[in-house]
């Protein structure tokens, strides 16, 4: 993650400037008011290389502040070879338009366009990327967009011809890839897609070196990238920016695929990549990490930047998921990384690198070559922008034709071999066949269940309907883990599967149609969709799609179980029975062990009803005219980040919420206060209403549905308390404070002088 060193500018502390440094790129983030307290020349000290100025949080700028700002810009122009302005607030765009030379030779990469929804009476800002919206800017027209809260059109609340005066005159900006990478990797800043499209530069000599630059997302070309890899392969990830969840999944599939054919080494992994892709699965097999970056901030001088870690050198520290000590490049002070616990936890998955010195040197050499102009890299090996085909040479001689034909033949043969190999590997890797080596005897419940599945020709993972069995007043639920690399993990997955199934069984047992409508129907379709995706993938024998669908299923089940544990007052750990298998899977030339577990949970009918009762009995918020339900854990299928809240079951005719809520809405907070359940809703809202009666205003809650989150509420009129009429007379003195006292009507002493 990007780290910041806040530095207060000026004694009043109205402006903070956070500095983020990475090599030759520095970002200064201005937060607050730029006025006479801002010292432009002082702020420019230490700037060098490429400067990125983040102006999203500039609240106000005074005319004298402009003077200092212009001094700042003049000073940094002397020392920075490029200046980029990002996320300029409307206030800043005003200054670009109004003040000569406000930005110097710097370029605006993005800005916030002010938008307004008259219906909600709300001002908002929307980020506009200059390169993506170049035409709109030139045409001086930003389109209306639907309001996030009410859906009515929200309009661009500025006069376009004046707002775009400066921007329309700015030439198209092509972001330097290094800057784009810095923005994405260090600032978590969304750079335009074009700038972040993944690019792979490759050098093939005694080993293979690939330098990736761009974002890793669902479009990550894992198969294309893995194609033809063999021997030792070093992947340089210093140019990788964002890695989203789907990208991490794709990366894992790539790493597993590639590591069958080659020995894979990763170098210079960026912090964002480490967090997402240093999982046990992604590093399984022969994947070794040579080096990576850890976020660092110096306590002494406030320097902020990522520090490179040589895995081999620090392995003894890293294996305990702790940070090595770093030396600040600015002042020499020592200190650890400021990486989060989640980040550090991933380091435990690293294995000790065994790369030879020669390979490390080759990687350095290849990287240096690739960082030189493209022609040099092409001479050495070849450069392969992802998704682009190599172009033919300008002159074609006989030798070239022969060479091309031979190459085609070789490529065809190799391609056929790879295709067959992949087809074969797909089954081996991702299906769960393999050889069962465990000697454990199958328990009777498992035998009976297995038999039933076999008769119905169902896969273990798809036996949703058969996973629940009733025996007297006992309810049995079976959960299955799929193959996991650790036995503990398999057990956890099986338990989660069973608990999720129990939750869904309880929901299906509720007969009240209104409850089913506002709770069950909200998540039922999503649950089915995820299960169907897995069924389809299994049916098609698509190993990677299966792996992906399973992961989605796991994630959702975990959500549901977490919600159950967080919300349920009556949950007791059910009785568990386990059957486990150990598998030996063949992957290419290597073998690996996997575990799968079936777990049967047993709860009594009485316990189940007790568990359920908390979620089906509506609580009436009398003063608000709303009936509410507790957050049912099954809803975590559609509300991924939520574990609590109050579901609207019904609304009375006179309810003040009648126009803004509908049954099924999930209320999660009122003002800043979270609504942890229906009981809390009444209390929290009533307190808020009482408070607003003293000054007037709107009681507002965040209401969620699976598709949107909106602010809902109603106006509360100020209830005036009778006060004595007080009229100031001339000479009675001035006001007691700006806006702090009660504002009576016509109380100025000299307005009618």
């Amino acid at each position, binding site marked *: 993650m990007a780290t910041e060193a806040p530095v207060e500018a000026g004694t009043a502390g109205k402006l903070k400037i956070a500095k983020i440094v990475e090599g030759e790129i520095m970002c200064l983030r201005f937060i607050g008011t730029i006025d006479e307290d801002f010292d432009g020349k002082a702020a420019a000290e230490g700037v060098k290389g490429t400067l990125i100025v983040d102006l999203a949080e500039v609240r106000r700028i005074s*005319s*004298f502040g402009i003077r200092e700002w212009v001094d700042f810009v003049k000073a940094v122009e002397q020392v920075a070879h490029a200046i980029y302005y990002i996320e300029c607030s409307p206030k800043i765009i005003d200054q670009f338009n109004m003040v000569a030379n406000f930005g110097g030779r710097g370029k605006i990469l993005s800005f916030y366009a002010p938008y307004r929804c008259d219906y909600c009476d709300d001002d908002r800002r929307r980020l506009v990327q200059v390169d993506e919206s170049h035409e709109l800017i030139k045409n001086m027209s930003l389109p209306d967009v639907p309001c996030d809260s009410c859906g009515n059109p929200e309009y661009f609340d500025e006069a376009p011809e004046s707002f775009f005066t400066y921007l329309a005159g700015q030439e198209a900006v092509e972001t330097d890839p290094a800057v784009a990478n810095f923005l994405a990797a260090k600032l978590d800043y969304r750079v335009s897609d074009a700038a972040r499209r993944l690019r792979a530069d490759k050098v093939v000599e005694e080993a293979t070196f690939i330098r990736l630059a761009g974002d890793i997302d669902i479009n990550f070309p894992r198969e294309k990238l893995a194609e033809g890899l063999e021997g030792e392969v070093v992947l340089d990830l210093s140019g990788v920016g964002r890695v989203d969840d789907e990208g991490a999944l794709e990366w894992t599939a790539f790493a597993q695929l590639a590591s069958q054919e080659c020995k894979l080494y990763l170098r210079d992994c960026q912090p964002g990549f480490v967090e997402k892709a240093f999982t046990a699965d992604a590093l399984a097999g022969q994947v070794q990490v040579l080096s990576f970056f850890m976020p660092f901030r110096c306590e002494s001088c406030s320097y902020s930047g990522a520090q490179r870690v040589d895995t081999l050198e620090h392995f003894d520290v890293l294996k305990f998921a702790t940070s090595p000590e770093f030396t600040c490049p600015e002042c020499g002070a020592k200190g650890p990384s400021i990486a989060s616990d989640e980040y550090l936890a991933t380091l435990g998955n690293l294995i000790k690198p065994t790369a030879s010195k020669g390979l490390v040197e080759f990687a350095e050499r290849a990287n240096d070559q690739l960082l030189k102009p493209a022609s040099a890299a092409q001479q050495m090996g070849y450069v392969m922008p992802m998704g682009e085909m190599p172009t033919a040479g300008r002159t074609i001689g006989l030798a070239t034709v022969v060479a091309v034909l031979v190459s085609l033949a070789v490529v065809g043969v190799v391609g056929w071999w790879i295709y067959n190999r992949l087809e074969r590997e797909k089954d081996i890797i991702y299906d769960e066949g393999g050889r069962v080596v465990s000697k454990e005897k199958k328990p009777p419940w498992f035998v009976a269940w297995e038999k039933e599945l076999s008769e119905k020709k169902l896969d273990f993972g798809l036996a949703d309907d058969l996973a629940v069995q009733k025996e007297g007043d006992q309810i049995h639920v079976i959960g299955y883990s799929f193959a996991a690399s650790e036995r503990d993990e398999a057990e956890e997955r099986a338990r989660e599967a069973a608990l999720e199934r129990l939750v869904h069984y309880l929901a299906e047992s509720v007969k009240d149609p209104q409850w089913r409508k506002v709770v069950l129907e909200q998540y039922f379709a999503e649950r089915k969709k995820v299960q169907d995706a897995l069924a389809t993938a299994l049916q098609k024998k698509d190993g990677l799609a299966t792996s992906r669908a399973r992961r989605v299923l796991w994630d959702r089940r975990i959500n549901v179980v977490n919600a159950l544990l967080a919300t349920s007052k009556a949950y007791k750990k059910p009785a568990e029975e386990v059957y486990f298998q150990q598998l030996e899977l063949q992957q290419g030339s290597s073998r690996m062990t996997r575990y799968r577990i079936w777990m049967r949970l047993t709860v009594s009918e009485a316990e189940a009803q007790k568990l359920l009762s908390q979620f089906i009995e509506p609580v009436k918020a009398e003063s608000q005219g709303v009936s509410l339900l507790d957050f049912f854990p099954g809803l975590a299928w559609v509300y991924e980040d939520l574990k609590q809240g109050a579901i609207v079951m019904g609304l009375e005719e006179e309810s003040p919420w009648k126009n803004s809520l509908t049954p099924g809405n999930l209320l999660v907070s009122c003002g800043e206060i979270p609504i942890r359940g229906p009981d809390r809703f009444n209390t929290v809202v009533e307190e808020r209403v009482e408070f607003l009666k003293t000054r007037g205003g709107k009681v507002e809650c965040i209401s969620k549905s699976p598709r949107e989150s909106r602010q809902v509420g109603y106006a509360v009129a100020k209830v005036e308390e009778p006060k004595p009429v007080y009229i100031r007379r001339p000479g009675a003195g001035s006001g007691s404070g700006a*806006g702090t006292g009660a504002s009576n009507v016509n109380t100025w002493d000299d307005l009618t002088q």
Partner: protein
Amino acid sequence: MLGWQFVAGIMGISRILILERNKLVLRKVVRILACTGAEVIATEEPSELIRCLDGGPAVLCADSVDIATVAGALQSNPSLVAVVWTAAKTDPLLAFADSHPQLNCILGRAGKDAAPREWELLWILRRLLTGETPGLGTLLAWGYTGFKEQIFTSEQRDACVEGVVRFCEKMNTPGRVAEMFGELAHEMLMNAMYDAPVDASGRRKYAADRKARIVLEPREAATIRCASDGMRMLISVMDPFGLLPRGAIFSGIARGLKGGEMDTSHGGAGLGMLYIYRSSAIAIFDVVKGQSTQVTCVFEIDTNQREFRNLPRSVHYFGTP
């Protein structure tokens, strides 16, 4: 402070000449100005206006499309005082006003078919005709609310700026307007606290160092007023020196609008007037030489920023001769 009069008042003007080519607008303006009690002579034809000029004192009201006629009339009749309204940009009129001391009131109006704001028009003409200085409350509807504070120190200034923002928020003005008023309050207070104070020999006391934390003497204190009637937001800052020259207003704004050229010769950035102009629908400058300078900004709350940017601004200057 009391007892002084404006130019027109001294001259005892009792006649208003109106030149407006839009018949409907003209009719409305005549009705409004009839309330002043003055003799109102209205025409749609510039050529007829010339015939009405008899060399006597009068207020000439006209639209900016007839600015050439107005210029000619002012040149040939030194006792004329002009009031010009415009539906186009106010910017060109500022340069004109800078070179024509008889034009001190420019009224922005919403469109060619709209009359100037009736309350503003009447307020301006009343002042010109009578020389009276009505209180700021007359710019708002009866029932307004607001606060007044005297500022002596830099710390008080900063607290007051935040107070203005809080007041705007309390009045339920949009967030951007609240921030704009905070910025405006800061700008106006900086002018009143750092630019205005002079010592006995007339030298500026604090202008050289805007970064200095200062403590004004009681006689130097700036007074800020902020008020609203729910439709308009008003902010006014007064200093007890009365040294703001007329030229600094019209030429200061015009210079800023020309391309944001800064003027750092007086210690500041020279953009203060531009700030005031850009942030208010109506800016009123009252200068009593050697006694007080009061700058008042009025903003119409219902105007969104998109409309506001295109809205022609009103600028009025009232100063002792």
